């Protein structure tokens, strides 16, 4: 079956701009996660949705980052006033309750 998909696969933007990153989870997966991975590091947790609600957003670095999942399926990660330090690979994962997280290919964000 179809895995987790993320769009765009690459995004280049200028400092100060707004970006949206989209995640389509595996059908039927109620849990959705966003992670950020910098070079040479493992994925770092940003936010977790159970259904439509954010069950844990403790990993969001500051209020420039926001994520939504209005219908409990597709999720959008939104970054306002981007900074060069936001450059990273943004990974989305989904899972059924108690199961392993299945990751998408990621969106490579570069802020110039």
């Amino acid at each position, binding site marked *: 079956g179809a895995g987790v998909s993320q769009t765009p696969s690459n995004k280049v933007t200028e400092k100060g701009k707004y970006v949206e990153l989209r995640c389509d989870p595996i059908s039927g997966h109620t849990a959705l996660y966003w992670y950020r991975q910098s070079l040479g590091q493992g994925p770092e947790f940003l936010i977790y949705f159970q259904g439509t609600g954010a069950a844990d957003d403790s990993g969001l670095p500051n209020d420039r980052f926001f994520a939504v999942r209005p219908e409990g399926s597709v999720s959008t990660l939104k970054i306002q006033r981007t900074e060069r330090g936001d450059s990273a690979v943004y990974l989305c994962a989904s899972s059924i309750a108690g199961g*392993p997280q299945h990751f998408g290919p990621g969106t490579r964000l570069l802020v110039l």
Partner: protein
Amino acid sequence: DQQVKQNSPSLSVQEGRISILNCDYTNSMFDYFLWYKKYPAEGPTFLISISSIKDKNEDGRFTVFLNKSAKHLSLHIVPSQPGDSAVYFCAASWKTGNQFYFGTGTSLTVIP
């Protein structure tokens, strides 16, 4: 504070031999552990998991061992194949649906 550590950034093994990847964790609350495999420009792919009630889980060529007293887990791949060359991340979590904490990864190269 890195709660999951992979102290070997790289490992080279001859084809047919055993690969052993190690992972240490600091949080005794973790009760679910996973290994992910990552190829360049792709998201991490789930490989194998183990819950804290077990000390071993085997799936084909892959076996994960958990030593709770030492807060240590390892992944054994035998026999190693060139297609196993990738970056391997260990991850840990506690309670269902919680975020995963990832190590920094070990790059495995299997030499034909």
